[in-house]
């Protein structure tokens, strides 16, 4: 079958040198405001001995350079981006517009409180909504990303245990399907992790959990739904066991998209949850960030929330900067306010009457794709999935084709591949997360592409798969060379 039914075609794409390779000397480019005069007395003795070597380009050249670079990127605005555990959904343009209002984008974080009441009101509102959605009413908006939220949450758990006289509890249980940030965050918090082997169904095995729970256990860190896309149906028992052992339950909220408006982690017994607003609440990923990782906690952990906190007085909002029990500050500023504004706007667009449609359509889409693909691809764990579905390359391995080849062929057909080789608990993982903002037409096209690839494998027509991609601006890149002799700056 030809690739022509898919959207990828060859178009005009430009090679573009590095800015350092543009030939001419820097022109007089930018006109600048400000005071023309002497600098501070004595500063000239500290003047640079030589220029830094930042090549200036004129404004039109700068725009063309970066616009050309932009055209080498796949993005959610240009195509399907079903990265499992990443929740790549449409980022509404009105959110970009409102976050850029001068009264939000051009305010200094140390302005007097009476000059920032509008932004404090929006942040306070978001704080309340995240508490409501998670079922954990006390929220800090400060953490800058999911992993930073994990650290904040573990610090709160540490503080709570210390206050109970449980300083010795330093063991954190982490399922082997967990995100790598979980054990890394625990180590940063002075704790050590013990890996729980997942059960045959990809879920937490209660017997395995019981075996490792003891008087040294500080917490269980779990993701629910887990990274295999399955809901931990024993959640009530899991939380009960952990609490009975005197430990707390940390929830990794990376997969909250499956639950929004449908069920709440706090109701299930989770004590603490970080929320990746750059996933669930559609703040753009920006090629790696910025995100924000607010943390929601129950009454047990509330005294330990980081400062500053936004509090509402009778008529006004203010920042509470002192607290005897707080774990302290996680950032030098109040938080990634601009990101949080977009999250507020996304929740506003759904409201109480539509928030559950996020989870419902996300889960519908993942199960629809699973239903279409389950005969052609190996499904390691049977049953309903939540917002993402997990496949492996087991059937294709017989024809010498690996997950990586499948991923690269998808690029030639105009798609961003799914998450590959994660979670680590299955061989050759392919984790597909469609999100709620994709049409059935798009889901069908992606499924057709995967079915076509599976058919090519069966037919032994695999040469093209090993060579893919050929239509992108670069073919497969040599990652070994990059790591062996790292060149991180232009000489």
């Amino acid at each position: 079958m030809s690739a022509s039914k898919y959207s990828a075609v060859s178009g005009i794409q430009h090679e573009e040198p590095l800015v350092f390779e543009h030939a001419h000397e820097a022109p007089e480019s930018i006109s600048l405001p400000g005071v023309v005069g002497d600098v501070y007395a004595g500063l000239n003795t500290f003047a640079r001995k030589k220029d830094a070597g930042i090549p200036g380009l004129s404004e039109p050249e700068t725009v063309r350079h970066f616009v050309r670079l932009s055209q080498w990127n796949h993005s959610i605005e240009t195509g399907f981006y079903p990265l499992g555990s990443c929740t790549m959904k449409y980022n509404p343009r009105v959110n970009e517009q409102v976050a850029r209002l001068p009264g939000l984008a051009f305010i200094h974080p140390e302005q007097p409180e009476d000059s920032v009441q509008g932004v404090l009101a929006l942040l306070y509102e978001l704080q309340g909504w995240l508490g409501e959605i998670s079922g954990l009413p006390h929220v800090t908006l400060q953490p800058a990303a999911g992993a930073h939220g994990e650290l904040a949450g573990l610090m709160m758990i540490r503080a709570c245990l210390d206050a109970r006289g449980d300083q010795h509890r330093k063991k954190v249980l982490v399922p082997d399907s967990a995100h790598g940030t979980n054990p890394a965050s625990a180590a940063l918090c002075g704790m050590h992790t013990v890996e729980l082997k997942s059960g045959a169904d990809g879920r937490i095995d209660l017997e395995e959990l019981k075996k490792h729970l003891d008087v040294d256990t500080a917490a269980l860190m779990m993701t629910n739904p887990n990274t295999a896309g399955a809901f931990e149906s024993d959640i009530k028992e899991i939380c009960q066991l952990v609490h009975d052992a005197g430990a707390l339950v940390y929830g990794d909220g990376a997969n909250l998209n499956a639950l929004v408006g449908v069920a709440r982690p706090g109701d299930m017994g989770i004590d603490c949850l970080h929320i990746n607003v750059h996933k669930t609440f559609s703040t753009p990923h920006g090629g790696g960030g910025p995100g924000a990782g607010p943390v929601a906690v129950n009454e047990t952990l509330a005294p330990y929330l980081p400062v500053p906190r936004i509090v509402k007085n009778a008529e006004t909002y203010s920042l509470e900067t002192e607290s005897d029990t707080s774990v302290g500050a996680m950032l030098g500023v109040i938080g990634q306010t601009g990101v949080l504004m977009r999250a507020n706007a996304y929740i506003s667009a759904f409201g109480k009457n539509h928030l559950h449609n996020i989870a419902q359509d996300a889960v519908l889409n993942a199960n629809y794709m699973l239903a279409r693909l389950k005969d052609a691809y190996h499904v390691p764990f049977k049953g309903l999935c939540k917002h993402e579905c997990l496949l492996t390359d087991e059937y294709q391995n017989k024809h010498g084709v690996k997950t990586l080849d499948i991923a690269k062929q998808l690029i030639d057909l105009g798609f961003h591949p799914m998450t590959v080789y994660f979670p680590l608990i299955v061989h050759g993982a392919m984790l597909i997360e469609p999100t709620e903002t994709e049409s059935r037409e798009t889901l069908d096209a992606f499924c057709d592409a995967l079915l076509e690839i599976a058919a090519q494998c069966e037919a032994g027509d695999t040469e093209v798969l090993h060579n893919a991609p050929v239509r992108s601006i670069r073919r497969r890149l040599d990652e070994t060379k990059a790591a062996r002799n790292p060149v991180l700056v232009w000489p």
Partner: protein
Amino acid sequence: MRYLPHTDTDRQAMLKTIGINKMTDLFADIPAAFHLPLGSLNIPEALSEVGISRKFNQAASKNEHVLNNACFLGGGTYNHFVPAVVDYIISRGEFLTAYTPYQPEIAQGTLQALFEFQTMVARLTGMDVSNASMYEAATATAEAALMARRVTRRKNVVIAGSVNPRYRAVTDNYLSRLDGSYQQVSMGKFGTDLDKVIAALDGETACVIVQYPDFYGSVYDLAPLRAACDAHGCLMVVAFSDISAFGLITPPGEYGADIVVGSGQALGIPMAYGGPHLGIFTCKQKYLRQMPGRVCGLTEDADGKRGFVLTLSTREQHIRRDKATSNICTNQGLMCTAAATYMTLMGDAGLETIARRSSAGLQALVSQLPSHVKAADGVHYNETVLSFASQQARDAVLAAARERNIFAGIPLERMEKGVEPLHLLVATTEMIEMDDINSLLAVMEVAA
């Protein structure tokens, strides 16, 4: 719901393919006790796009902003010029709505921009290598301390009291659950006393952290610190708050710093009430494998064409898990693209002009202060401490300045706990014009 493409007809057809009857059956694996009654959350009903726009415009109108106020506030965040081109480039969906470049063949745009960013930041700070961003300056400072502990296999950290108090607090927080000491060396003045800092070093010190220009804006000779670090075998870590300084003054790398961290917010990124900003992390090449965070490296593709990939990932959490150099995953990627665009627009000449005008504003202000207002001693870049005879006098200036649409400075005790309420931390950038300075001076004459 306008962001959801399905009609109910679509949903029914898809449910049929799945083999279930209704949407709620999709959640049959969640125990019934945990099912929320749909629509029951205590959140207002959905807003239209117009409704969202109105809501945010109304809220924004309750804030005062620096497009119609003169801003002398600094303390780690600075009101520098944000060129229209920078916001345009990072608004492009191809940069804005891409993920971390895990599939490099279709992310060369982000990757080349990161490579250019890393190169320009290394050149501006005078360092060998840069990573592809940390969250912001305070966490970057904390990560520098952690990295120095790994490099030296020592546990004690010394930090000057003239480092931004927020950076000190976050570093304290990061270190407090680990073994080892964290010594904050009190300066006793609004500046940096390197002798006191050096006196705190010994053979157990993993690193010493200073800020340059320091929290109070003062610039000083870092050379004695390099010599002291060599003598004690510890790393020299230099933090900064406003990277624009290095368009003019000798950067920390030229003094032999091992790790240089700070804020890149000045590189075309709006203040946005705290962020998203840009954490800078640079180091010497020899320490590269202990560096936290993502880095972009040069390589070639199957046809031998130049290309870029994320590299050295064996340092990172998704590979090394609990042995990773940091837990950071999501970083400030888009802000690297913003900073690369900004630096390309400016070039060396533009960056120097920005720095000179930022500093000239402060010189113009300080050289004309009325006699009852004292500026801190020392050589300053674009920030200093102004001291008043009484809190009443200071607060009167703040209030009178507000009347004239001027944010005159940050009450120092707001950032540095325990200092007397007599001081203002005052910063200037190229966005401050002579008229603004004259207005502030006039306020000082009459208000106090």
